[in-house]
């Protein structure tokens, strides 16, 4: 196991679920409850010092019991290394802690995850849709059960068949 993952496991034995290292990327999976404290550890602990948030992403695994996976990618500008933090969320209780208090850039990134996948973020200052329209009612487009063509909202748009003379 990578030493960073080992360090997280030592500090948070209850919150640590697993770690992988593949193609040079270190990924640590943690429980949802321990997420915020582990993120705070990554941000402020001098040995970690992950001051830069790269992106927030989400993956839908419809067959799993905990359906959604939220993925954060952090970079340490001083130590020049990356880490990926992952946590799983069930569909029935689709909420995780927001990390906007640790990285201000997380604001828009988390809004995008909410908009596309429908995962809500606790303590987010302004959790609204960001790319889809505010009155969009078809759900969350990047979920796997959302058809590529959409759910028919666009078919209700009125078009003129021909230009009136």
């Amino acid at each position, binding site marked *: 196991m990578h030493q960073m993952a080992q360090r997280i496991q030592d500090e948070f034995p209850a919150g640590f679920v697993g770690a992988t290292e*593949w*193609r040079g*990327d270190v*990924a640590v999976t943690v429980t949802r409850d321990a997420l915020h404290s582990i993120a705070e550890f990554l941000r402020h602990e001098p040995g970690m010092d992950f*001051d*830069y*948030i*790269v*992106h927030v*992403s*989400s*993956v*839908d695994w419809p067959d799993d019991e905990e359906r959604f996976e939220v*993925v954060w*990618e952090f970079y340490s*500008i001083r130590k*020049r290394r*990356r880490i*990926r933090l992952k946590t799983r969320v069930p569909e029935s209780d689709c909420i995780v802690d927001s990390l906007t208090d640790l*990285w*201000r*850039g997380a*604001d*828009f*990134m988390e809004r*995008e995850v909410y908009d*596309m996948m429908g995962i809500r973020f606790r303590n987010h200052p302004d959790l609204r*849709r*960001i*790319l*889809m*329209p505010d009155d969009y009612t078809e759900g969350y*487009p*990047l979920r796997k059960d*959302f058809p*590529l063509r959409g759910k028919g909202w666009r078919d209700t748009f009125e078009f003129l068949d021909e230009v009136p003379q």
Partner: protein
Amino acid sequence: MAFEDQRTTVYKVDPEHPESKTLPTLRTEELLLNMGPQHPSTHGVLKVILELEGERLVKSTPVMGYLHRGVEKLAEDGTYHQFIPHTDRLDYVCAMYNNFAYCRAVEKLLDLKVPDRAEYLRTIVAEVQRIIGHQFWVSAQALDIGAMTVFFYCFRDREILLDWFDELCGARLTTSWYRIGGVERDLTPSLIEKLKAFLDYFPPKIDEYQVFLEKNRIWLGRTKGVAVISAEDAISFGLSGPTLRGSGVDYDLRKYEPYSAYPKCEFSVPVGKNGDTYDRYWIRMMELYESVKIIKQCLEQMEEGPIMADVPSVTLPPKQRVFTNLEAMIQQFKLFSEGFKAPPGEIYCGTEAHKGELGFHIVSTGGSKPYRLKIRAPSFIHMGAFDHMARGYMISDACTIFGTYDIVMGECDR
């Protein structure tokens, strides 16, 4: 510093002033103003709701998504090769860099080694694209501020490079020249000659752009001390590229995580001090000189060799062989109909595009299509810092502040 005052001073009515007594009905209230989505300076379709006190911005809320085409959803429906043309349409000003970032990400997923000549070709074309991107930025930013001449001078030189792209791959903007495992075709002697001629022609032109702007009082007044962001805030917001380097952080993936032919070239990364629009402008101008240096070194060092990795299960066969050889034709047919199978796993790969870090996060379950593909678009992440950077400035500065990120809405909304 004189510029700090501009940010902190708020003009209020003095009740003791004799003139204010003659205006008994005077009252102040906040004004809400919609800027866009059809405003000419918003670089596409972007709406910003501005809360104003007089002419000062109190709060600004970007409203995005007018150009959302669901690229990430489309990626899940096509093979890895089929997504390359979609990346052209992200940042449509600089398509080559998007192709590059995507192909690098897939190569990382496949653990594919690209031949040396292809790496040099990729670096050369990426740097040509960086020159185009920075020329486009300076011309658009100057036009927003009102300096029209620079726009024409930049576009005159940009046209030479777009014609060069046309000769290289048959398209000026939506290029799709990069391939997974290499590049689509080699530089011809005529292209190399034209590029060398351009490299001799171009550096004096950069000086020309600078003369137009750096001696221009309006340009200096509208860029110096505007949209200031400290290094700490810039890192916290996840800014990247010249927008972050303007604040004095030398974060450049070409140096931090060297890739392609960059480790074999000598170049420096210009870093600003004040974190204002002027420093970001200066960085982009200096990067033009650095790009010229990188291209020259690549042209010197480049040796003959294959331009595509030879992994028949993944990479496309050369076009000549497809028409003459049965196996190559079958290979081509299979790759375009069902694609190749990527190993199950998850990667993130960031590339230093001219706007900032353009990254692809790909989750594969072992199929021929990405299970999930997430694009880390610098324009989108930069817009997150807009409210913070615009507070206290004037309405007329708003368009120069999203100009300073080099924002392209195609990439922002995806």
